[in-house]
């Protein structure tokens, strides 16, 4: 099965020149639209960015303190420290995909270290995971695809759920949720990190409807992805934190060694 995946990757690399060629006119239009901007527009944008930067910088100062505090607390609890994951920006190649699936093609491939199953996010939340990897382009399966499911938890109380795609761009569904589950409309769902594909704590969706009709076996929960899946242009590829996996292994070993020493 894995060897076939490499064949698929090879095929993806073979056709990627066609994809780059097909997307060229659109890129040219984008380039033109970006270059033909009035001076006034640029000045206005620049001012806006300066104000934003000030606000973000202020938050970053706070974050630095909170981060240090968190690290100290985690050290006290002997929990693994969370390092910064490696990230890479990728651009969406606007090529058409099968109408029966939700996929996009990005301009990064095996040459950039992309691997199958890698998590893909945008500035708001989880977008999907890498499906096929070519040398210079790869295909991303979106969370709204019918064949995709992602483990999540409610950030308010930590209840675990699975968010499955239904093939509609603005909706995810949650199967097998008992009626008694504490879940409300507008609850934020974040990745739980279970399953090991997606790093923990990234926002995925917001609960949009909860129907707890006792005549059905389970509650009917719908949620709306927070990532702007229908207007993606740039996405971030995440690499798993290797040192964390290493640290948690140590953590498992820790009680044993303690027992020995005593």
């Amino acid at each position, binding site marked *: 099965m894995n060897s076939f995946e490499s064949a698929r990757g090879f*095929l993806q690399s073979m*056709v990627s020149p066609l*994809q780059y*060629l*097909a997307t060229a006119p659109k890129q040219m239009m984008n380039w033109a639209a970006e270059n033909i901007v009035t001076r006034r527009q640029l000045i206005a944008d620049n001012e806006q960015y300066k104000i934003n930067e000030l606000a973000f910088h202020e938050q970053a100062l706070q974050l630095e303190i909170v981060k240090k505090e968190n690290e100290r607390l985690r050290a006290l609890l002997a929990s693994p420290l969370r390092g910064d994951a490696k990230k890479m920006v990728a651009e969406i190649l606007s090529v058409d995909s099968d109408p*029966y*699936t939700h996929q996009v093609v990005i301009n990064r491939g095996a040459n950039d270290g992309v691997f199958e199953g890698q998590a893909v996010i945008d500035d708001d939340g989880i977008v999907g995971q890498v499906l096929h990897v070519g040398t210079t382009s790869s*295909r991303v399966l979106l969370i709204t695809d*019918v064949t995709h499911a992602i483990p999540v938890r409610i950030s308010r109380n930590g209840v675990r759920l699975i968010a499955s795609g239904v093939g509609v761009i603005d909706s995810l569904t949650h199967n097998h949720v008992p009626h008694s589950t504490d879940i409300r409309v507008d609850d934020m769902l974040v990745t739980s990190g279970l399953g090991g594909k997606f790093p923990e704590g990234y926002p995925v969706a917001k609960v949009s409807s909860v129907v707890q009709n006792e005549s059905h076996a389970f509650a009917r929960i719908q949620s709306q992805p927070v990532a702007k899946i229908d207007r993606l242009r740039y996405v971030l590829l995440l690499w798993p934190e290797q040192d964390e996996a290493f640290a948690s292994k140590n953590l498992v070993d820790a009680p044993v060694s303690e027992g020995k020493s005593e």
Partner: protein
Amino acid sequence: MSLSSYLIILLTFLVALMASIMPLPLSVDAFRPDWVLVVLLYWCLALPTRVNVITAWVMGFILDVLLGSTLGVHAGAMAISVYIVAGNFQKIRNFSVWQQAMIVGVLSALYHLIVFWLQRFLTDAIFLPSYLYPVLTTIVLWPWAFLLLRKIRRNFRIK
């Protein structure tokens, strides 16, 4: 059959493949005609010894990789549609362009339905009438594609 005529046939296929993955506004996207099928059908009617079911399968396979669908879905549908034409090319050749357009429409509908059936088998897709919109544009496209490709064939003396 010289090398250059093979290259020209290949070039028409490349253009058709590119047209079928070119980004389009969402409102027009559902009406995207089956470029590859039209080009395949033309060459299959004109030169059935050169372009036939195997070419159709290969083009469908490339389309599968380009569109990211399960490998073989478009390949199978394309091969079956072209098989029907390859078996009846002498009859279809003698029809007028508009009659041909109707036949191409039926084949395009068959192609889309086979793709839909396979997808339904794989992912429980439900049928939407919009899956058959490309049939209309393909019917309209056929006369123009036919005239253009015939011009190309005569101009470069592809036999």
